[in-house]
């Protein structure tokens, strides 16, 4: 790949955001970025801004995206380099393994970004990382006479093979989701780094989130009403919504600070360590996360009448805790609000409201009763001790 910003945008960024074939070639070096930044006006290309806007509008109607900045360019370069590790011609490159490790380190450094300072910045990173997760790859597969198959990953088969290949050989075309079938360990590790750089993507795709992730990373997103609505509906759109909720809850609970483990007091004369990443444990942030998870229950009750046969068989503690969240409403209701409470207040004067709300209220009540039979009491007690106590004063 020619190491210029224009080519990077044309061959990689624009297809990444807008769809179409994106070209992956030689990796970018860290020293390639400063020359690119000298052409920073390329980052203000209208079509690029428009594609970012369209990507953002897939989530919220009026995204407040900041202008492209060096961090975003750094992220694109890191994503680009991640794909290099999945290149089928990687073995043809004359280099030692240490060089590849150096490339991985460079890429990781490109993907290491500070936590987003605002919702817009989080959305900006999700625009790129979310599109990266959705990347597809077109493979051509042909059976070999000696057994096995020959797969051309993101490339065309050599003409010498196509010349002798016949339909009897089973030439077929496959569309592969790239992030689900990463072959190299380096790419898998780098993908986790990319996800850590985009907390909103982790929130929206909790099943692919890296270990140790916490929804509290995207605390700002849970404070934005439009964004929370988008998050809830994105969760509800997925088929295994219980697993999604369980993953979020399972990531939330360990990230809560343990009050019993007091911070050690540094001894005198000891060198002070730099403070690590401090997660916000403000009750309002927790209320936002818990309220979104409870609202996910309500959305599925409205949509599906909430058949929970699969969830009952799951032993995942995160899933159990997720299913127990609506049972915490008697304690959290004052802070989170009831799913039906807003409806009653806003549409009290709407004619025919009882006709619409009565079945929903009945189903929600039945759903809570069902959960009460389904969820063990100990799970509720654990949540009362760990989660609820951080939001409201429990007796």
């Amino acid at each position, binding site marked *: 790949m020619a190491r210029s910003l224009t080519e990077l945008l044309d061959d990689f960024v624009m297809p990444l955001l807008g769809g179409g074939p994106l070209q992956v*070639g*030689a990796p970018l070096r860290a020293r390639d970025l400063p020359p690119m930044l000298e052409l920073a006006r390329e980052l203000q290309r209208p079509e690029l801004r428009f594609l970012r806007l369209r990507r953002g509008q897939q989530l919220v109607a009026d995204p407040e995206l900041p202008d492209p900045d060096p961090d975003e360019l750094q992220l694109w370069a890191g994503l680009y380099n991640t794909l*290099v590790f999945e290149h089928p*011609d990687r073995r*043809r*490159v004359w280099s030692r393994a240490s*060089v590849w490790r150096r490339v991985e380190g460079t890429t990781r450094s490109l993907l290491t970004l500070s936590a987003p300072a605002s919702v817009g910045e989080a959305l900006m990173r999700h625009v790129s990382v979310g599109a990266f997760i*959705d990347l597809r790859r077109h493979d051509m597969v042909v059976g070999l006479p000696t057994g096995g198959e020959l797969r051309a990953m993101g490339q065309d088969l050599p003409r010498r093979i196509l010349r002798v290949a016949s339909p009897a050989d089973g030439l077929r075309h496959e569309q592969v989701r790239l992030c689900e079938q990463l072959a190299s360990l380096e790419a898998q590790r780098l993908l986790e780094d990319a996800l850590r750089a985009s907390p909103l993507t982790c929130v929206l795709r909790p099943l692919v989130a890296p270990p140790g992730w916490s929804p509290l990373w995207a605390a700002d997103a849970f404070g934005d009403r439009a964004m929370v609505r988008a998050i809830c509906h994105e969760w509800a759109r997925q088929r295994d919504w219980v697993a999604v909720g369980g993953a979020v809850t399972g990531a939330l609970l360990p990230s809560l600070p343990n009050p019993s483990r007091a911070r050690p007091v540094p001894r005198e004369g000891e060198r002070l360590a730099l403070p690590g990443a401090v997660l916000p444990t403000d009750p309002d942030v927790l209320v936002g996360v818990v309220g979104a998870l409870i609202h996910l229950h309500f959305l599925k009750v409205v949509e599906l009448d909430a058949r929970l046969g699969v969830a009952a068989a799951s032993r995942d503690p995160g899933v159990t805790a997720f299913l127990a969240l609506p049972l915490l409403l008697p304690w959290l209701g004052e802070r989170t609000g009831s799913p039906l409470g807003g409806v009653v207040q806003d549409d009290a004067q709407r004619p025919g409201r009882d006709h619409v709300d009565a079945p929903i209220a009945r189903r929600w009540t039945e759903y809570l009763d069902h959960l009460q039979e389904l969820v063990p009491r100990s799970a509720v007690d654990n949540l009362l001790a760990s989660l609820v106590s951080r939001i409201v004063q429990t007796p």
Partner: protein
Amino acid sequence: MWARAAWPAAGGYYRPRFPLCYPPPRMATSLLEPVSAGQTRFRMQGLAPDARGIAVGREVLVTFPTIDWLVAFLGAFSDESNLDDLLPTMTLEHSRRQEGGHAILLRAAAGDGYAVDRLARIAGATRGQLFTGSGSVFVRWRGREAPFGYDLVSPMAASGEEVLVVDIDYVATYAAVDRMDPVELIQRLQLRRVPLPLSGISGEAERCGIKDLALALVAPGLASRVLRHLWRLEANFAGYYVTLEGDAGASLLLRIRHPRGRVLDVLHGTPGVELLAPASSRAAVQLGYRHPIQLASASACLPGEEMFLFRGDVGRVERLPGPPRFVDGRHLVEATGTAHLRELGQLREAELEPLQVELQVRPASNPREPRGALIAWEQVALLRHLVYLIPPSALAASRVVPLDEGLVVITGSSIGNRGRAAAVAGMGAGAIVPLGRRLGEVAPGVLVADGYELWPRVRPALTRQLLGLGPDDHALFLRPDTDPIRVTEAQLLPLDAALIGRLRLSDATTVAPELPALTPGQVENRKLGRFALWGFGGPPKGPEDEGRGQ
């Protein structure tokens, strides 16, 4: 037998005395004994058990004290059952009882126990006694004491032609004196009078049995008059002439189907005319009389194909030879008219000009529903404002004609498609628009100013014909002193289209999305050169690489 006792003189007491010459008194002995259940053998010949075990002989014998009770028996039986079942085997004998007295004996073949039970019941109601047996010996029919009948205690036999009737305690012997033919007896029976309805037979024709069909026997001298009268009344009748026994001339027998009350009243009140009600297909009984026997159930007593007319007034039964052959009434009357119809040949070419008058407009006072209006041009601006008040159906049915005199609004003409729509819509716009001079419709499509009419009042269709109007043309008599105006269909403009200004619509522009939906990107791996990692090989040398990638 008990001897007659001698009564003593006054003051003495009764003392029976038995002379030595008398035999000693005996106890009464029964001549019959009841048949027991299941008994199959009897001392009397001819008895046999039926299905219920009742001893039934081959014949039954019914004794009546007088012939009147016999007739009553036959009448009751014919009412209840069919006399034809009994007549073929029935014989009637006038017998003398050996012990003294007379009786009428009716013998007939016995059926099963049910039929004999019915005969016994009817005989008991008509003072008769029923016995069963065969040949010359008959025993008492079953009763309450002997539900299965009676049998002789000891066999008995009659001598000669006598008939021996055995009851429980006595034996009667009958000897036939005279035999009667039952058919002849039935035919000779005297008719019984029945009262006629007080309201006349015309109102009670069904009760008298002559509602559908009536027969009339007309004396010879009245035939032609009666026929003429019936012909004049257009009655549905047929008849033929029959010669009754003892009459010199031929009488006329008429059959009148569905006679009207007037016909019945006239015929019933005419001397020499006897109305007869059909009792069966071959018997009729005079009106006011009734045969003691139901003739409908006794066809066997009317043998052959003859027709029987039972006449009560004269006390005769007329036997008409052969089946009745009625001839339709129109062949029985004679035409006496002499007038002949003349076909109309050539019409006279008469001059009708003296009859012709001029069609003119004259004032009238009768109100008409306004079907149009003549609006002066000065008031057209007002009409434009009033259009908003006109109902849509009336507006759609209204048409206008611009003339020099003004704008004619035709709202409810009865011709044309819009006219029919106006008729459906109800009241037209002419009744709503309070402008100009109203026009009324004197004929379809002919509008005359309100307060006037066409004179003379000819038929509406003729009016259009006289004016020479086409199928969709209109004629307007706007003023009495001006000539009418012909308006063709093409000159009529729809009111709504004439009033509403032309609107210009802007063509819709469809906006197609210029950009396709966002799709995931497709990774295409370029060919990677052997020196793709050029520049990554060395350790960091520059300050830019320091701390990165390691």
